[in-house]
C-alpha cells in the first residue's frame, strides 16, 4: 500500500485542479438557480463556447505573430477576457430568446427549452467549426508549458508535479470566486441580485429592474463559464463541442452538493467533487482487484454522488431545507 499512498498527494492536486473548474462552472448554475429557480441546462454549452472562443483568440494571436513575442500571461489574460465576453454575451442571448418568453410558465417548460438550447448550441458549434476549420476536434496552440515540483522538505520528498497551466487555473479560479462573492455581497447591484433571488415581486416593488438583474446574472454566470472554458482549453489542449456535456453535469452535481443557490456551496462542492472523483478514479481499480477500472466508471461516479445527495440531503451542504408551500 505504501506505493499506492505515495501517489495520493499527486491525485489530490490533480483533483483540485479539476475541482476548481467544476467550481467555476457550478457558480453559473447556482447563480441562475438562485435567481430563477431553474436549471440552466445550456450552461455547459456556454462553457464549451468559451473554450472555442479561446481557441479562436489564440489562433488569431498566433496568426499575428503575437503568441511568440507577447508574454504568455498577457496573452492568457486577453484570451480569458475574450472567452468571458463571448460566453457572457451568449448567456444573455440565450436568456432573451429561450427563457424570458417562458417566465412564469410551469417549471418543466423552461427546462425543456433549456435542453433544446443545449442540443442546438452543441450541434451549432460542430457545424460552424467543421465548416470553418474542417474538423470539430481542435488542438489548441500551446501557450504555457512547464511544471513545478517535485519538492523536498528536508529529506522528505513530496512527489507532486504541478503544471504551470494547472497552477494558473487555481489562481484564476480563486480570483474569480473572490471577485464574484465580493460583488454579490458588497456592491449595490449585488444586493439587488440577492433581493431578486429572495423575492422577485417584492424586489420589483422596491424599484429594482428585475429583467436587468436577471440579464446580468446570465452575463456573469456565462462569463464565469466562458473563463472556465478558456482555462480548460489552455490546460488540456484539445477541445470539441462535447466537452461541455459531462463537465456541465459534474458541475451541476457540485452545485447541488454544496447546496444549490449558495455561492460558497458551489465552490466547496466543486472542490470536493474534483478531489473525490480523482481519488475514486485512482483507487477503484486497485481496491477491486482491477475488476472495476477507475477511468471507465469515472464519469458515472458524479451521478452516483448526485443521487446519494438528493436522496439523503436534498438541500446540500450549505443549502437551507425548504418545505413546499401549498
Amino acid at each position: 500500500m505504501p506505493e499506492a499512498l505515495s501517489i495520493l498527494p499527486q491525485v489530490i492536486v490533480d483533483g483540485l485542479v479539476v475541482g476548481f473548474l467544476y467550481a467555476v462552472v457550478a457558480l453559473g448554475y447556482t447563480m441562475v438557480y438562485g435567481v430563477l429557480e431553474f436549471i440552466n441546462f445550456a450552461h455547459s454549452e456556454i462553457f464549451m463556447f468559451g473554450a472555442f472562443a479561446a481557441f479562436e483568440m489564440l489562433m488569431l494571436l498566433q496568426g499575428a505573430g503575437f503568441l511568440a513575442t507577447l508574454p504568455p500571461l498577457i496573452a492568457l489574460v486577453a484570451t480569458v477576457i475574450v472567452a468571458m465576453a463571448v460566453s457572457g454575451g451568449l448567456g444573455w442571448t440565450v436568456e432573451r430568446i429561450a427563457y424570458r418568453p417562458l417566465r412564469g410558465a410551469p417549471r418543466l417548460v423552461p427546462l425543456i427549452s433549456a435542453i433544446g438550447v443545449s442540443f442546438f448550441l452543441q450541434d451549432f458549434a460542430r457545424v460552424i467549426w467543421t465548416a470553418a476549420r474542417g474538423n470539430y476536434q481542435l488542438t489548441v496552440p500551446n501557450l504555457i508549458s512547464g511544471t513545478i515540483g517535485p519538492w523536498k522538505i528536508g529529506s522528505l520528498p513530496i512527489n507532486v508535479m504541478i503544471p504551470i497551466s494547472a497552477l494558473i487555473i487555481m489562481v484564476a479560479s480563486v480570483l474569480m470566486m473572490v471577485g464574484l462573492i465580493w460583488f454579490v455581497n458588497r456592491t449595490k447591484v449585488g444586493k439587488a441580485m440577492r433581493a431578486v433571488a429572495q423575492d422577485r415581486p417584492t424586489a420589483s416593488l422596491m424599484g429594482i429592474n428585475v429583467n436587468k438583474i436577471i440579464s446580468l446574472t446570465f452575463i456573469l454566470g456565462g462569463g464565469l463559464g466562458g473563463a472556465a472554458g478558456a482555462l480548460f482549453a489552455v490546460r488540456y489542449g484539445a477541445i470539441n463541442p462535447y466537452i461541455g456535456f459531462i463537465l456541465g453535469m459534474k458541475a451541476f452535481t457540485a452545485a447541488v452538493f454544496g447546496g444549490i443557490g449558495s455561492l460558497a456551496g458551489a465552490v466547496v462542492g466543486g472542490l470536493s467533487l474534483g478531489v473525490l472523483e480523482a481519488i475514486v478514479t485512482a483507487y477503484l481499480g486497485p481496491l477491486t482487484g482491477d475488476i472495476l477500472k477507475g477511468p471507465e466508471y469515472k464519469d458515472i461516479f458524479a451521478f452516483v454522488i448526485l443521487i446519494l445527495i438528493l436522496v439523503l440531503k436534498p438541500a446540500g451542504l450549505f443549502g437551507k431545507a425548504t418545505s413546499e408551500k401549498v
Partner: protein
Amino acid sequence: MTQLRKLYSQLVGLFQSRRTAPAASILLTVLTGLMQVLVPQSGFSILFTLVAIYVVAHANVHTVTKVVLAVIPLLVAVPIAGRDNFALMPLMVQLCIYVALALGLNLVVGFAGLLDLGYIAFFAGGAYVYAIFASGQAAKFLPWFAEHAPTGLGGWWFWAAIPIALAVAALLGIALGLPVLRMRGDYLAIVTLGFGEVIQVISRNLDHPLNITGGAPGIAPIKYPFFFGIPAEYNGIAVYMVALVFATLTAMAMMRLEQSRLGRAWAAMREDDIAARAMGVPLVKMKLMAFATGASFSGAMGMLFAVKQQFINPDTFGFMESIGILSMIILGGLGSIRGVIVGAAAVTLLRFQFLRDLSDLFAGAGLPPALDITKYQPLIFGLILIVMMIYRKEGLVPATRPQIDVDNLGAPVPKPASSTQGKALGQ
C-alpha cells in the same frame, strides 16, 4: 390567402359532411395507396399515406370504415411498395418502434408528469436481453449456452423473450423510480439523464470480468426469429407486421390506461401532487407504476429493435436518442395520444427519410461529407424543443379531456372538449 383558407374549409367540409365523407375517404385512401405502389421510392408516398390515414381517422365515417381504410394501405400498399424500395420496410419498422416508444415516454412525462431524460435506458435493457441470448454472446459467459446453443437461441424464443424483456425493463424502471421518488421535476430530469448515462457506461464496460454485453463493439450477429414459422429476414414484411401489431397494441393500451383509475391517478399527481395525496392517491405506488409501465413498453420495443438491426452496441443508446423521443412527444403534444403518434411519425420520417433525401441532394451539390445533412439531428431536436416551448407548448395536436356534463350525470357521454392549454405542462 383567403382563397387557400376557403379551399381548406371546403376540404374539411368534404370529410365532415355525412354525405360526402365516405366517398372522399375511400378516394383519398385509394389515391395514396396507388401512389405508394406506383412511386415506391419517394418519401412523399409514405408521407401522404400516413396523412391520409390521419385524415380518414378524423373524417365523419363509421369506425369500421376507418379501421378498414387504415389497414388497407398499411397491410397491402406499403408491403407491395416494400418489394421495390428496400429502405421502406426498415423505415416502417423504425416508425412503429418510435411510435410505441414515444407513447411509452408520453405515459411517464405526459400522463404522470415525470420528466424522464433517460428513457432510452429501458429500450437498451430490452435490446440487450434479447441480443445476448439470441446471439453467440450468451455462450461467452454461460457454460450451458456454450454447450447447447453456441450461436444463441432463435426461432420461437422471440415470443418467450417478450415477457422477460418486459420484466427486465420494468425492473429497471423501478430501480430508477425508487431513488427519485421524493425529487421534484427538474432534479428528477437530471437524475434520469444520469441513469441513462450509467446504463450506457455499464453496457460499454461489462465485457470484463465477465463478457456479458460485448463491450464497446457490441453484439452481432443477432439471430432471426421465426414469426409463425416464417423466418423474419431483413427487409421482410414479417418484422414490419409484428412491429405494427406492437405499436397498435401500445396505442390501444394507452387509450385504455388514460381513462383508467391508474391514468386518472397519474393525472391528479401531475396536476398537483399534494392535492392528489390529500385525495388518497398513493403517490409512491403511482410513481413506481408510471416508471415501470412506461419502461416495459420501451423494453419490448428494444427487443424488436435488436431483431431489426441485427446488431447493437452502446452508442445506439445515447442521450441523443432520449432527446429524440422527447422531441417527438413535445412536437405532437404532451399527454395527447394522437399528437404523440403524429409527432413520432413526423420526426421519424424526417430523420430517416427526408434528411437522407436532402443529404443526397446536397452531396450532389458538393457539400463535404463532414457537414452531411443527416448529422444535423441534434440541431433539429433542439430547435423543435425551443420553438414548441415558446410558440406552442401544447403541441401540434393538443390533448383533450373528456368533459362530463354535471347536469346530465346519468348519461356521461365523453365528447372531445376544446383543448386545455398545455394540459400536461400546466401544473
